[in-house]
């Protein structure tokens, strides 16, 4: 089976809100609706730390649907509008079936569900849907027929939330927040595949779930915030010639056709500095 999950490396999160804004574009979220929020864990306001200057601390917590294995929202939905897809574990909302009772919003311990109280308003001047175009129906036959899991024409009085970009995932494309994260802090993949990047990263990165004590067992994982290594002094003396990447690393980068976080890009041939420039005798003289 496939079980899609997401891993956010908080030690690389700059809190830039690009995932949140990207989510708004791809999913044509109405004004005031954010499926993906970047919370500041620290002071009382966005981008502020806790503590007393200069002993202060802060980190960011991007928060979208946790796609729980044991999802409270699914249990409380009286009409099975919210359901967990068998084929990959995505928690989805059927916009045609939701009756707007908002039990799911009360049940969700993570506060990631939003509700269109009125007729949705979109970006001023933008009188067409942005992002993904057209409706998307769940193709998994076990989900039941006519499951409208994405529509740019958002109905009033319906709950909406992060779907891991189901309309992209069903075409084999990763969620948009993964694509646009400028620091590469987000990973998406199959948790059931022990060799997938997300599975190995969850294991190696001491990744954790939010509110594990509730037993919701989210498919969303977090690598803890960065811990400064300034206690480790820099000693010894390296030489720039040690910094040429190994051929293996370059080959690996070329193989995947892209950038590998943490790899040292080709440094070119490191040549020892040439002797100091000789002055041009022909131009030597007064008036220079």
């Amino acid at each position: 089976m496939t079980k899609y999950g997401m891993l956010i490396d908080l030690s690389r999160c700059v809190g830039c809100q690009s995932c949140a804004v990207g989510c708004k574009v791809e999913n044509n979220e109405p004004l005031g609706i954010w499926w993906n929020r970047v919370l500041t864990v620290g002071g009382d306001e966005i981008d502020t730390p806790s503590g007393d200057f200069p002993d202060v601390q802060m980190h960011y917590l991007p928060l979208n649907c946790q796609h729980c294995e044991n999802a409270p929202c699914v249990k409380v939905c009286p009409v099975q509008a919210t359901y967990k897809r068998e084929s990959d574990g995505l928690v989805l909302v059927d916009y045609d079936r939701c009756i707007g009772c908002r039990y799911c919003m009360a049940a969700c311990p993570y506060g990631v569900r939003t509700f269109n109280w009125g007729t949705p308003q979109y970006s001023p001047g933008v009188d067409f849907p942005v992002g993904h175009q057209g409706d998307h129906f769940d193709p998994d036959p076990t989900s039941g027929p006519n499951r409208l899991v994405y529509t740019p024409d958002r109905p009033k009085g319906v709950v909406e939330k992060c779907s891991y970009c189901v309309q992209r995932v069903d075409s084999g494309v990763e969620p948009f927040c993964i694509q646009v994260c400028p620091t590469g802090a987000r990973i998406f993949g199959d948790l059931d595949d022990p060799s997938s990047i997300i599975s190995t990263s969850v294991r190696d990165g001491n990744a954790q779930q939010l509110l594990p004590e509730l037993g919701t067992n989210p498919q969303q994982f977090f690598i803890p915030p960065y811990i400064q290594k300034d206690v480790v002094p820099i000693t010894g003396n390296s030489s720039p010639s040690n910094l040429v990447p190994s051929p293996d690393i370059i080959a690996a980068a070329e193989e995947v056709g892209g950038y590998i976080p943490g790899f040292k890009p080709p440094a070119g041939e490191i040549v020892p500095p040439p002797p100091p420039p000789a002055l041009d005798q022909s131009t030597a003289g007064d008036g220079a």
Partner: protein
Amino acid sequence: MSRRKSWFQIDRRGFLKVSGVAGLSAVVAYSLLSQNGIIKSILVPAAAQTQPQQGATETTYRTGHANNCDGSCGLEATVVNGNIVMFSNATFNEPDFPPRICLRGLSQLQYVYHPDRLKYPMQRVGARGSGQWQQITWDQATTTIANQFTQIASQYGAQSIYIAPYTGNLAAINGLIGPGYRFASVIGASAGDFEGDNEGDSASPTGAVEELGSFDGHELTDLLNARMIVLWGNNLGETDIPDMRFVLDARDSGTKVVYIDPRYTTTSQLSDQWLSIRPGTDGALALGMINAIISGSLFNQNYVTNYTVGPFLVRQDTNLFLREKDVVPGGSSSKYMVFDTTSNSAVTSDTAGITPSLTGSYTVAGIACKPAFQLLSDLVAQYTPGAASAITGIPASTIQTFAEEFAAANPAAIKAGFGGISHWYYGDLTYRALITLSALCGYIGVHGGGVTTYNGALLDAAIDLPDWITPDKKSYQYLPPISFCDAVLNGNPYPVKAAWFPCDNFVNQQGDTNRTISAIQALDFMVATDVFMTPTAQYADIVLPVATQYEKEDILLGGNMYLQYLPQIIQPMWESKSDLDMFGMVAEKMGQGSYFNQTPDDYISLLLSGLPSGLTLDTLKSQGVVRLADEDFASSAYQPITRPYVPFFQQNFPTPSGRIEFYVESLVPYNMPLPIYNEPIEASPSNPLYQKYPLVLITSHTKFRTHTQWNNLAWLRELNPKQFIEINPQDAAARGINDGDTVTVFNDRGTIQTLARVTSGMRPGTVNIYQGDWQEFPKGTVNMLTHQKINPAQSVVFLFQSNTAYFDVLVDVKKS
């Protein structure tokens, strides 16, 4: 530093309470839109996947983001039914340079389709600045401009017409090096220069040109080769956000990241060490480190001897370098004398087999001299780590350890912020101190080293700029933007009577807004070209609507090592036109139409015409983005190019001596040949004004806009709804200010109102207001508080003369 408390100890309520999106439940006060006009598809069988909209065609275009954040991201625009429906990140086609974008690039369609866009040319009908306009035609507008310019040129000379720099668009033929310069050149007008989001932050470029001969930075992927990265006054995680990726990659491979900033920011939380420094004292920190490095003999003696002016003897009488002609009749004026410890005599520096001395005091031909390195040592003797600590507020032991680690890192890279370092009166001295620190350790021109603020300068050098902006050797008269008000108000250095501000929110961004408005009001005639009715456009006589970068063709160079093609993706909205078209219409009516009668393709081809690799526009169009070939970087001083790009890799420096000049002769008249430390011109406790205005005001860059751009985009306003001033709880309590209070910020130049954000991330004694907001002009315009004090030493370089000391400002705050 203590370990953090367990990060996930956040309770359920916390997800609702902790701040994220401000005002989530608030009603958003934007006009109601018609619901999108799509007819919902009829329900289809479950096996079906996404249903494309009936009859819709989807096309994607590769473009780049030409805004002035220096990130130069590659963008992919998706067009459906003639509308741009999405911007995402595009590939650079190279394995070592990842796709990049941030929240600003993602929001671009709100800019293109914004209902507040200027839609047609307008002429002022009320008093200047009164906001009363009349729609006119393009023909009427350009005829009026041509007639006014012609009349003013005949009365006062053409240089009395000032064409401002395009600070908001870094593209070539419609932007930063665009048709405004070409127009100014052919009519003989004045023009500002290339720098300046903020009408000038050129102290860093000036310092670099003085000491290294050019202002050029490492390709930022080269940070992965560093063993220590110093983010010096550079909140990279909030400004050039995608470049923070390289810092984090380096950090996660073991590189130590040190971040120097008065404020605690997102970059602090991701760095290994955050040093909160008293604002404006960065030069003293660098000199303290140099002191520790010299006194510990941690510097690279070979490098200092061979590649810097360290061994060059400096005359104690004239303070100039001792040259061969000074000691030998008929000697050369371009040969520098050093003291050779092998022969125990003064010889020219190019003599073979010598061992030049870096220290000591010598008398040569009756002239008392010291090596420049000795003079540097003498200078820094007073800046022991303890003394530097007293100035900067950083503990002496921290400075000592930092210096030792910096020297041991081999190499260490300094990534310096444009604003953090430049926005000070003596910013050029600070930048020179950073270069000197790096040079002493032998880190200039090596992988993983250097002092980098801007990357991609070589791209500008590669293209045929002169034939484009100064055709037929006709040239504009250079007037630094910071001198504009003086020129208008005082006729200094000459009178300016008319101005055209294309893509330049001068009124909002120049220091001392009241003075700026006085100058604007004193103009005989003013034109503004913009996308919105900005504070600058409000004061114009003629306002011209410009097409956004997505509605006109261009190329983007600089910011990184890639040349990007910017196609015209959609037709110009409403009656807007490209800059090239509108300057061409005016030029034609002034009898200079022949300089503007070619197509955008022709002018782009002209820019590319000199490239040795033979790159053509067709190739660029088909690939969308290219990394220029090594041979395209024409100057032999740069050959061969290494990758990642490292400036000065050949250890050739286009300085008078060909070496790194931490001793600059042209600054002797200013008593600044060495990178001395001076207290900030205003923001210093030694300034008597400090008794009256005890808070230093810095005006940082926010992630929610690029200077003044994107300030009115709905999504970014939801995240960042109101302007605010950051103030430490101590400073707030002393003034009875609570978080969220409306406060007045004031000094002798002006008064503004904003909201208090009381945060322990703010250094006591310092307050911060993010620059660039213009939604609350003039009530909240932060430049009401700043000034236009000009550092005369800036004028020793040919360009880069305009520096506004935005951070060098004292204020006080009170509850409104």
